[in-house]
Structures are given as C-alpha cells and as structure tokens.
C-alpha cells in the first residue's frame, strides 16, 4: 500500500504559506468550527481587527454560498464537498480561496458574474450591493439574499479571481479567490 508523503505535503503548505486548509464535505457546524480556528490563527498572528474581520467574513460568505448551492442542487455529501484555503502572499496579503463542484452551466454563469464584479470599482460595487439588498426576497429561498458574492468583492482589496476547471461534460470545479 502506498502511503501519502505527508512531509512533502507539509513542505508544500509551508512554501505557499497556507494558514488553514480544508477539503471535504462541509456542514454548518464545521463552518463554525473552522471559522473559530481561523479567528484564533488571525489573533495569534496579530492581524489588524479590520483585516481579521474581512478574512473571517469572506470565509463565511464563501462557505455558506457553497452550502446553499449544494442544497439548492440537492447534492449528496460527496458533491457538497468544499476546498478552502487561507494563506499569505508575498505582499503580506491574506488570500481566501474556496471551491466546489458545480453544474457546468452554473459555473459559466458564476464566472461571468465574478468577472463583472471584478471590473467594478468600490462605488459601483456598493451601488450593486444596495440594489441587491432591496430586491424582494425569493419566497422559495430560505437562505441567501444573493448578496454574498458582492460582499466578498467589496471586501477584497484586489479584483476577485474566478476559475472553472471542467470535470466532465456536465460538471466543473469552480473556485474563487479574494485578497485582503
């Protein structure tokens, strides 16, 4: 039996300055627990309270979006998995990156939405956010208000980066990266 080379994995994490990572089915309580760990790491790193809150907030919106999407699509545990990373980059920014499996068509639409948001300045993002906030709530949707992605774009200090990797003809892996 072949074992996983944990040391090379660790080296990879360290080289990429990954503070926290998660890969697997994600539950409501897991989001909270990982969020708690994230808060503690940021505090231990002496992050500015505003930066710490932005990182935490982006993490929450991204993971809750993934949960809501998986629920809306009726995905099982395996498909509801999320891949989440919080890291530092060379400019000492925090990177929050999260990805999940999506229907290929949804992925294309999402990517177009991310690109549209990435092209807006802060004033345009605020106006888009306020417009979305005023949209009547969809009676069938018990959860999101469609604000999460805009909120993430507003908090990111650089334009959001979205990516779509095809898995097969029907599905793809969508990932999103924000910067603090």
């Amino acid at each position: 039996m072949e074992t996983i080379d944990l040391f090379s994995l660790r080296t990879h994490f360290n080289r990429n300055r990954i503070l926290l990572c998660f890969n697997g089915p994600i539950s409501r309580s897991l989001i909270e627990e990982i969020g708690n760990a994230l808060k503690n790491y940021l505090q231990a790193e002496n992050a500015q309270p505003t930066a710490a809150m932005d990182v935490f907030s982006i993490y929450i919106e991204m993971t809750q979006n993934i949960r809501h999407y998986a629920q809306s699509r009726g995905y099982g545990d395996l498909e509801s998995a999320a891949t989440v990373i919080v890291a530092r980059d060379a400019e000492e920014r925090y990177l929050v990156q999260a990805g999940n499996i999506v229907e290929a068509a949804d992925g294309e639409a999402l990517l177009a939405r991310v690109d549209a948001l990435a092209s807006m300045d802060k004033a345009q993002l605020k106006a888009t956010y306020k417009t979305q906030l005023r949209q009547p709530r969809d009676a069938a949707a018990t959860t999101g208000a469609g604000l999460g992605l805009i909120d993430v774009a507003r908090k990111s200090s650089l334009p959001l980066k979205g990516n779509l990797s095809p898995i097969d003809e029907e599905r793809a892996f969508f990932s999103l990266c924000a910067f603090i």
Partner: protein
Amino acid sequence: MNDLNIASSQSTPGIESDTNAGILRMHGDSYPENSFEFFDPIIQWIEDYLRLRSEALHLELRLVYMNTSSVKAMMDIFDMLEDAHGRGRAVSVAWYYDPRNERVLDLADEFREDCSFPFDIAAAPQ
C-alpha cells in the same frame, strides 16, 4: 406580549426585549446559515410591539459581525422602523461599537444611510 430572551451562541446574537420599557437589545455576532429563521421571532416581536403599544421603541445594538443574510434581515427591521416613523411613531436606534474595529462602524453607517429616524452610532470601548 411576551418578552424575548435569547442567549447568544457562536453564530447568533443574544436578544433581550423589555416591553414595558420599549427596548430591544441585540449583541454579538450574527452569521447563522438560515438568518430568516433566526430573525423571524424578532421581527414578529417588533411588529407586535408597534401594533399593540403606542409608546416609543428603542433598539440598543452591540452587533459586531453580520453575514449578508443577517444584514438583509436587519434591513427588514429598519424598514419596519422607518414605516412606523413615517406614521409618527417614536422609534430610535443606538449602535455601540468597539473603536478598534472600524468595520462595525462601516456596517452601522451603511444602514443609517437609508433611515430618517434617530440613529446614533457611538464608540464604546469594550
């Protein structure tokens, strides 16, 4: 009408109401997965208070982090207060924040932009 007394949890704020004093207090973080479910009884209490009572209503807030679905629910609450204010009811909000974290000030300030009733935002060292 019954008063609310909801203990805070990791992802939901603590809520206390005092019907006789006309005060509703909310404090802590708010990022439940289903915010509408969480905020439902609070919205109900405010509706009842505004319908059954004629005295003033004051919201005392020490909310810190809110996810976007909590923000949406909170906006529904401020819209109710705005309507009541338009009908001549005395309503007011005071939002206290830790001055070390200006994000809370930004959040409260953005809500206040859409409200014409008295809405104070004050730094309160923790």
